[in-house]
């Protein structure tokens, strides 16, 4: 098992949309957005099984999500976290003076974290904002 570097993008999925409208505090939302979609090739490089928790780290933050096989792919070298608090913990807030953060195209490293858990929405928010205990 080793860490890999990859290009991260985020965006809408229909599961994210449905879970969002059903209530962001619910577990369905965590299951829809607390994931990272990766290509088979990248799974091999990382050396973990599918559906393993991983820690995604960028210059902006770090978050634990579940690595799943890309539902829309292939796209080797590109990983996808649906838009939401998990993605936004690591995306680039650099706007290059346009006012628009760079939600797509953040360099991140991914390392296996089978013993860490994907935090529920509200716990993640409180942890991120006020450092409240996990």
């Amino acid at each position: 098992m080793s860490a890999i570097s990859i290009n991260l993008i985020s965006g809408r999925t229909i599961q994210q949309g449905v879970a969002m409208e059903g209530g962001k505090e619910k577990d369905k939302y965590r299951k829809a957005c607390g994931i990272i979609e990766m290509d088979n090739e990248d799974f091999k490089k990382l050396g973990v099984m599918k559906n393993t928790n991983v820690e995604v780290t960028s210059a902006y933050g770090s978050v634990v999500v579940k690595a799943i096989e890309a539902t829309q792919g292939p796209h080797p070298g590109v990983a996808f976290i649906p838009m939401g608090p998990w993605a936004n913990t690591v995306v680039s807030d650099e706007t290059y003076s346009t006012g628009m953060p760079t939600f797509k195209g953040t360099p991140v490293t991914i390392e296996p974290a089978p013993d860490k858990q994907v935090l529920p929405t509200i716990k993640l928010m409180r942890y991120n904002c006020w450092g409240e205990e996990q």
Partner: protein
Amino acid sequence: MTKTISDVICPFCGTLCDDLVVTVSDDGTKLLDVENACAIGAEKFLHSQASDRVTRPRMLQEDGSAVEVSYDEAIEYTAQLLAKAKKPLMYGWSSTSCEAQSVGSEIAEQVGAIIDNTAAVCHGTTLVAVQNVGIPSCTLGEVKNRADRIIFWGCNPAHAHPRHMSRYSIFPRGYFTGKGHKNRKLIVVDPRTTDTSSLADIHLQVEQGADYELLQALRAAVRGQELTGDIIAGVPKAKVYESAELLKSGRFGVIFFGMGVTQSLGKDHNIDAAIMLTKDLNEYTKFSIIAMRGHYNVTGSGQVLGWQFGFPYSVDLSRGFARYNPGETGSIELLKRKEADAIMVLGSDPGAHFPIRCVREIANLPSVCIDPHITPTSEICKLHVPVAFVGVEVGGNCYRMDNVPIDSRKVVEPPEGMMTDEEFLRAVNTRITEIKAA
């Protein structure tokens, strides 16, 4: 007995579908069923009926718990917060009616706020590009009836605008498009293979972040110029030429574009190039370009701010007149610089959709969140004011992604004693006038 209401407007995405059929109980208090909506739209309607819905304002306590307060207390808190702040940020506005947005603008002017909508993290760069180079556009009705060449650039309507393709862009049979999808050609530009690209005649799997290069190459190819290099932005040169010929051979084409170009590197320059490509294609055939707007009334918010202050988003009123410079007055940069001293959020969820550095800043400011749902924002704001769902429990004007205004309708009664966001804002506005006069 139940009542069936037809031609209901869906308040989810910018497609603003207007053919939903909603079944409600005889007394109009319970929403029982939704037909014709996509999965997301149906969930939005049905969630208004959730048994665990919050129906009264809640104030966050020191220990992290929330205590219920009355609407009057919430109005007083919000009015004091905005009236006392030197540079409050009033953010959101995309999931509410134009009527509520208009009252919001009045408040912003009274208190000298920065008023910004979700374009800040969505199509803001599009608006900048439109100001740079203009926009040749059309309505979705024209797309349905005339378009035989469609490009989806950096967007995935199969997931984000689920009924867009069936109502307007790919499948419907229109006046001059009687064969439906059979005589439409579809090009999808996306760094991933997506559920939308699986329908495409040509999928240009662009290298992530290299959209500008591909757009300019396509412009050159359309003009018949020679391209150098075999691979352009991750796409084989032959495919670029093939796409250019396909676009030129159509009778009427439309480029739809989304977050893939507005949020990737290049930002407003990407849209500049996409609009110029549209202009170039008009030398050979008829072409238009439409932004795939996300929230159902983000377009309306741009319209309201436009006619109130002259700018579509990120309007700074703190100096007593309207200033606009998104790289400076936009919510993201404002929060990063820690310049706002209070925040009011309505009809949006920056807690879930802003980068974490900005969310942290919101969590540490005096704050009010006005939203029907419990959201990440409502959970980090000092006060959460639940309001009736616009488009479900109260009507109001909305603008579709092609700038066509459509009145949304009330289909069911809100829980007893619950305010609408417009009523709440009017009460806050009146109270602020009193505070300022004192």
